[in-house]
């Protein structure tokens, strides 16, 4: 289900400095899978491209996104209030494949603003009866969404400044807590994803990672958002695959990061 719709804001709250929780009432909510994303359009005519934001949670009526208001577009988006409307394009991309991990134990790794999509993944794993732990890497003590995770699955925390949980990265937390699993679901900055890929390879685990790239269309038409692949891609017929369409979630071995 891909469509541009107008959605009503039902929540806009600042969870931590510059980190907002946004809920949108939209028919698209019913189609959301974990790891998928939507594009949110700024309204100002000087900023035309949609901002890709992952789905943090969904029920049949509402989508929840948690995002950082960092640049001009997301700052504009954060200025809108409950009752205002936003144009969105969704639901986009291929998310985490819950079926692929049935019967396995999954470690959910979220780093920074990569934490939000892990929440919906955790919920879907849980309702599919799949065992999972969440490992959340923060910069500091602003542990947004931690409570949400704790109500779903065992949750471990790392922080770069050591103010909560293990000092360091999610990998440090895995080691410190001696966490084991069969597969990673992971989203976060590129250095983290590279570390996750390496760790998984070393420990014979599967790693599913969510990638980011600048996007224009979000639907596979512009070829703006590709990532290099190790094999020729079925759609592009070159060693490039579209993050917005084939991804954003990939098996780590498939992509050349």
């Amino acid at each position: 289900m891909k469509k541009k719709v107008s959605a009503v804001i039902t929540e806009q709250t600042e969870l931590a400095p510059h980190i907002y929780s946004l809920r949108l009432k939209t028919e698209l909510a019913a189609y959301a899978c974990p790891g998928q994303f939507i594009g949110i359009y700024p309204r100002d005519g000087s900023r035309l491209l949609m901002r890709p934001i992952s789905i943090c949670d969904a029920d049949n009526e509402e989508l929840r996104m948690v995002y950082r208001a960092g640049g001009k577009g997301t700052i504009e988006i954060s200025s809108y209030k409950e009752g205002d409307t936003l144009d969105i394009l969704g639901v986009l991309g291929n998310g985490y494949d819950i079926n692929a991990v049935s019967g396995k134990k999954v470690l959910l790794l979220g780093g920074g603003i990569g934490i939000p999509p892990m929440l919906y993944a955790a919920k879907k794993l849980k309702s599919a009866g799949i065992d999972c732990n969440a490992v959340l890497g923060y910069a500091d003590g602003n542990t947004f969404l931690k409570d949400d995770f704790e109500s779903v699955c065992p949750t471990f925390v790392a922080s770069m400044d050591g103010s909560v949980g293990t000092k360091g990265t999610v990998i440090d937390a895995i080691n410190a807590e001696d966490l084991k699993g069969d597969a990673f679901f992971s989203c976060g900055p590129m250095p983290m994803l590279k570390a996750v890929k390496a760790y998984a390879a070393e420990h014979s685990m599967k790693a599913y990672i969510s990638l980011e790239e600048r996007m224009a269309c979000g639907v596979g038409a512009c070829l703006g958002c590709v990532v290099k692949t190790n094999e020729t891609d079925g759609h592009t017929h070159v060693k490039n695959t579209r993050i917005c369409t084939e991804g954003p979630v990939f098996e780590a071995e498939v992509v050349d990061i």
Partner: protein
Amino acid sequence: MNLSVNIAGVTLKNPVVTASGTFGSGFEYSEMTDLNKLGAVVTKGVANVPWEGNPTPRVAEVYGGMLNAIGLENPGVDVFIERDIPFLRKFDTRIIANVCGHSVEEYIETIEKLNETDVDMFEMNFSCPNVKQGAIAFGQDPHVLEATAKAVKAASKKPVIIKLSPNVTSIKDMALAAEAGGADAISLINTLIGMKIDINKRKFVLANKTGGFSGPAVKPVAVRMVYEASHAVKIPVIGMGGISDADDAIEFILAGATAVAVGTMNFIDPQTTAKVAAGIEAYMKKYNVEDIKELVGAVS
């Protein structure tokens, strides 16, 4: 009321087409908009063999528009023929294949393969700013353009549209060169060349440094060039550059375009083309215009 237009013997049911590279192969947007409502689908540039394109980042947002340096990534003409043409043929719309290449030989190789398919027309992209091996020269020198047009036209069994770069001193000279080279129509504008720098990282935002600039911000340049080009040549002109609604499209038609293409704004609203077509019809009703042709160039 007649919205259909004729470009080199090919009838388009309405004057609204997609701009190459902004609509994939049509497939990507077919779920979100009705391709039957389009005058034609102009497909992403295709070459004789698959192209990898440029490194990422390939796109950037700029004030009122965007930059792209895709570098003409494409799966090659064979996949295009096998996969994309049969898909598009299911719809009641024309197919215009946009063709790219590094050399005259590559263009001709692609065209010769496409000659045997049922695409309706070719659009020759001599003007992509993101390809380094010389293609840009085709589009920025009238003599080279004319010679290339002649070679391509000789190899082609379908009408040939030549797409012009706006990055030239005289668009009139380029339009005349295309016409002299035998083009059946011209289309313009391709993207302006732009650059964006990240001042905090002190780096180019695009891996390619420069990129093609498109979107509403470029419209005044595009309208001016369509006006100048269409007044210089007798062949039909397909106008584009920043069209976001029917008013914009009508502006191009009044400036002299026989048909118009919607590019970047597809990304902002997949329904843009359909809305443009409907809006042109509404305008014609409002002003009692019987035939869209009455509007072409009708500015004073």
